[in-house]
């Protein structure tokens, strides 16, 4: 009984998030547009995440290069290392890690900030001042996530390649030109465009789930904590599951 009621409640919540996301999408194409706030949120979500994304990308590239090298050396295929790194990073690792990092850094922030405003009646105050709180707080943040994530993915992709190069350069004295020539020779535009566009869906997931949990928060400080933690957990989980569907979808519609 408990299992069924938990399952039922989870399905109900998923339905509510779906309806909430639909409302976000409808509101995002209706005037008036909150341009100033959207730009502010892109700065908050995108620009402020750059150091984390770039540093993580470099570290990821270094570690991947270590692992790839140990496998490749066994088969005498060291010259393939740049290509393998580039394909792995651009097609899958970059988009997924950028999404998960953003869910951690920005999802928690959005959830906590909106929940804090809800429980201290600041959202009611916005409405009382004749400002559409949904458009002003929610739509702007979701759009910022959708816009910023593909850019951040591009940054993590290149940072990963740079990390891979630094590692290769330190171990085998590989030149910059050689490494990047080999890396890009193996890449096709579809290796970049489709996985990167996929992250707009990740941005929608992170923004919508975090905003939903914040916007519907109750119970004071406890509610703020729950919204913050829930934003990271549920955004990450849904993002990973959606990624599986999107990969299959991409393979079906755009076979390599």
């Amino acid at each position, binding site marked *: 009984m408990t299992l069924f009621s938990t399952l039922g409640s989870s399905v109900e919540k998923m339905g509510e998030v779906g309806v909430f996301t639909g409302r976000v999408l409808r509101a995002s194409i209706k005037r008036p547009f909150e341009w100033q706030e959207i730009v502010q949120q892109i700065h908050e979500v995108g620009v402020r995440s750059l150091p984390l994304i770039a540093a993580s990308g470099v570290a990821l590239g270094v570690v991947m290069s270590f692992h790839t090298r140990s496998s490749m050396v066994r088969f005498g295929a060291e010259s393939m290392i740049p290509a393998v790194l580039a394909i792995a990073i651009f097609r899958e690792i970059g988009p997924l890690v950028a999404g998960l990092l953003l869910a951690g850094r920005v999802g928690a922030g959005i959830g906590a900030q909106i929940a804090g405003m809800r429980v*201290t*009646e600041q959202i*009611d*105050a916005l409405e*009382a*001042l*004749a*400002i*559409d709180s949904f458009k002003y707080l929610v739509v702007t943040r979701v759009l910022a996530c959708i816009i910023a994530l593909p850019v951040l993915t591009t940054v993590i992709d290149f940072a990963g390649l740079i990390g891979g190069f630094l590692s290769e350069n330190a171990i085998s004295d590989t030149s910059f030109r050689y490494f990047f020539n080999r890396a890009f020779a193996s890449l096709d535009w579809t290796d970049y465009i489709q996985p990167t566009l996929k992250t707009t869906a990740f941005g929608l997931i992170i923004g919508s789930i975090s905003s939903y949990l914040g916007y519907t928060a109750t119970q004071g400080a406890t509610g703020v904590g729950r919204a913050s933690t829930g934003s990271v957990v549920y955004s990450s989980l849904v993002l990973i599951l959606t990624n599986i569907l999107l990969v299959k979808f991409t393979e079906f519609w755009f076979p390599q």
Partner: protein
Amino acid sequence: MSLPSNQAICLEHLTKAFSPERKVLDDVSFSVPRGEVFCLLGKSGTGKSVTLKLIMALLRPDEGKILIDGEDVLALDTHALQETRKKVGFLFQNAALFDSISLRENLAFPLRRHTAKPEAEIAEVVKQKLEAVGLGNDGDKMPSDLSGGMKKRAGLARALVLDPQILLVDEPSSGLDRITAGEIHELLGELKEKNGTSMILVTHDPAGVRRFTDQIAVLDGGRIVANGTPDELEQSDNELVRELVQGGQDR
């Protein structure tokens, strides 16, 4: 299209429950003529703040009708509701200042959103409103740096920044010393006399606003148990009503 009305606010048979067991408001009706001050009294937890939130359409009633300036707020679309809300200033019980921006920005924010005033004029209006509540030197402070009483005054300044025709004030003097509370009451009285602002005041200090109060209603158990002029209610047979009107209860 709304009909002209001499009532600033009119509530008809308003009912609101947050749980099936208990109605917070049960068939509440009253009206506030233009330019008059209406005091809503009652013990804590009797639905006074809920009434104000229902008027602003921040909550939806289960039954009943709410008219602001003759317009049925529950029937308005989003845009029309926002236009109506611009006519109404609302001081929240806990002030509800935006905590990520300074006091000055809290006041400038609605002006930037709803008027075409240049920045210099906005700065001047903000300065005037802050001075009116005795916070002329505190514009750069963040809400977290203010005391409870200062937050209350700042919230009132923000509620007044668009020069609303109607003001809903939730406990204007709670957390204030007697002198500051007196100054706030003086300001509210001036708004009525000079600007003809209509007001609903939720207060535990009816004596402080007696001078400019036209009508008082007492809420008990979700119902209006008394409604009349201050003089009438002071002579009420109901002991609770007399005590609340004389300001001796729940202070």
